[in-house]
């Protein structure tokens, strides 16, 4: 401590011009640069550079262990005629659309329920979030076991209730497999949506509901004209994240079906893994994953402009 107190007195006996070194030490912009250096280093070397590199690889015929040469859009032409690729695009869109819509609906409903006053409220909220904490792969394995073709507990229960006579081949039939992975995704995503929307709900002033009650608003009207408008900004953010992570999902599918049966659950991410890493066609895999970028940009744009419009309507300045 003594050093710190003494240092300025000894270091600056007379006023002198700031040297370059002083500039680097104290100038706001230089300081900012030094402080940003570690984060920027990571993000540039392991995020921005690979992002560019990925797009470049998609224009080459790179294979594992062999740097490729530039072949133009051949990979994309190849994919254009590849029915499995289009099936994976269809699956991804179906998966994203259905799972996000249901996650939103159930998540909002759950948030509204959890916002009620009841005993053990805090504990319930904590319990609800557990599916989100547990690593996706591990819970996907649990679902794999629950949806097993022979020993499924669901088949067993339905059989004992007398609803079905045969085991349902959950992950072996393409329709059922799609339903199962979508269900598992919803199961994992609902807690996130619910808890974040709940945080939004708690900021809504109760007096608004009281006023609406006095004005004779129905339950639905209160939701439609108070809760929903006030929640819109947070809904936009939450759903952007949800759509984004559903669209690029990999682990759930890989742990449960690996894209099977007959590619019925292949998403673009799993297909690109299969082509790039397992089959070794890096260029083709990179083309598939680069093909996700336009979809992602579209999703970001939609939510971004949704957010802007809402801000403008509420008369906030766009900071």
């Amino acid at each position, binding site marked *: 401590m003594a050093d710190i107190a003494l240092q300025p007195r000894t270091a600056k006996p007379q006023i002198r011009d700031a040297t370059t070194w002083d500039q680097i030490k104290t100038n*706001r912009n230089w300081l900012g640069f030094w402080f940003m250096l570690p984060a920027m280093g990571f993000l540039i070397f392991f995020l921005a550079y690979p992002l560019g590199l990925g797009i470049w690889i998609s224009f080459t015929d790179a294979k594992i262990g062999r740097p490729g040469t530039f072949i133009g859009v051949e990979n994309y032409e190849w994919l254009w005629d590849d029915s499995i690729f289009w099936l994976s695009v269809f699956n991804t869109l179906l998966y994203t659309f259905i799972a996000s819509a249901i996650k939103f609906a159930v998540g909002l409903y759950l948030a509204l329920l959890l916002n009620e006053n009841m005993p053990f409220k805090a504990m319930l909220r904590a319990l609800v979030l557990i599916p989100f904490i547990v690593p996706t792969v591990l819970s996907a394995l649990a679902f794999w076991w629950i949806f097993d073709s022979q020993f499924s507990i669901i088949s067993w229960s339905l059989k004992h209730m007398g609803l079905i006579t045969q085991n349902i081949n959950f992950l072996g039939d393409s329709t059922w497999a799609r339903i199962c992975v979508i269900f598992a995704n919803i199961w994992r995503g609902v807690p996130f949506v619910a808890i974040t929307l709940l945080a939004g709900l708690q900021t809504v002033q109760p007096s608004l509901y009281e006023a609406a009650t006095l004005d004779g608003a129905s339950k639905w009207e209160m939701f439609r004209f108070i809760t929903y408008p006030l929640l819109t900004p947070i809904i936009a953010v939450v759903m952007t994240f949800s759509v984004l992570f559903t669209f690029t999902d990999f682990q759930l599918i890989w742990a449960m079906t690996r894209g099977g049966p007959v590619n019925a659950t292949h998403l673009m991410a799993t297909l690109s893994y299969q082509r790039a890493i397992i089959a070794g066609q890096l260029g083709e895999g990179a083309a598939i994953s680069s093909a996700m970028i336009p979809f992602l940009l579209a999703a970001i744009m939609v939510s971004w402009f949704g957010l802007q419009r809402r801000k403008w309507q509420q008369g906030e300045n766009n900071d």
Partner: protein
Amino acid sequence: MTDLPAAKVDLKSILSTPARVDNSEGMSYLQSVPRRMVTLYLPLSIIVFILLFPFYWMGLTAIKPDEQLIDLETYNPFWTWNPTFKHIYKLLFQSHYPLWLWNTMYVAICATALSIFASVLAAYAIVRLRYRGAQWVGGLIFLSYLVPPSILFIPLATVVFQYGLFDSPLSLILTYPTILIPFSTWLLMGYFKTIPFELEECALIDGASRWQILVKIVLPLAIPGLISAFIFCFTLCWNEFIYALTFLQSVQNKTVPVAIVNEFVDGDVYRWGSLMAGALAGSLPLVILYAFFVEHYVSAMTGAVKE
């Protein structure tokens, strides 16, 4: 308004609306118990049951004897009267599981520490130094949060290979921060904004350097934020799958999620017990951590979204 009975009925339905937090005593006294049963407790318990059932099933399978796992007719599958620790024993003493657990822990802690260090500096610079272009950099960092790993893993695999990091835990320690830094920077920016800047001005007048201000004033005040960021980053690391699957090859180096999927899944009909025991043991550390820091966890999750 003149039609009194109708208004009365209307009122009742109105008063059962959700979303009253602080003063729910105000309007909730009119809600009848049966009504709450149907509109609140019933749907809530169904949802909670569905959300928690897979964990019950995971735990039950992990302690069931093998013959009960595949014989659903003789034994009721929903319960077991003679639990066995065979699967867990096999997991802990006859497989590499402890090693995988250690790998996961090691990678998660290193990557989290690195990213928290980098994002504390970055967040402080963006919020308080406000150098030229800080706003833009903040926006870019948010955008980088939206770049998913499943787009990056192919080029990153070639990068990792070029740097000679393939099949080493270092590859994960260096690549995980790309997922963690954007998130924790964004979270910490929110926290730093709430610390009054007058404190820092005082310190500046007293001759403290920016580094001293950060270490001695800002960080102690931002400890809740740091804990939130730490826990959330740790969970994300533990959960990460695609990088670990792509960059690691040898059995000893794998992390828990990858190892379970690749090493435990074989044609054996009795695999389920050890598979579920593995899944349970892989989830428990996170659940325990979560149980101690629920509030921090929730604030991390919602804080990052609200910003």
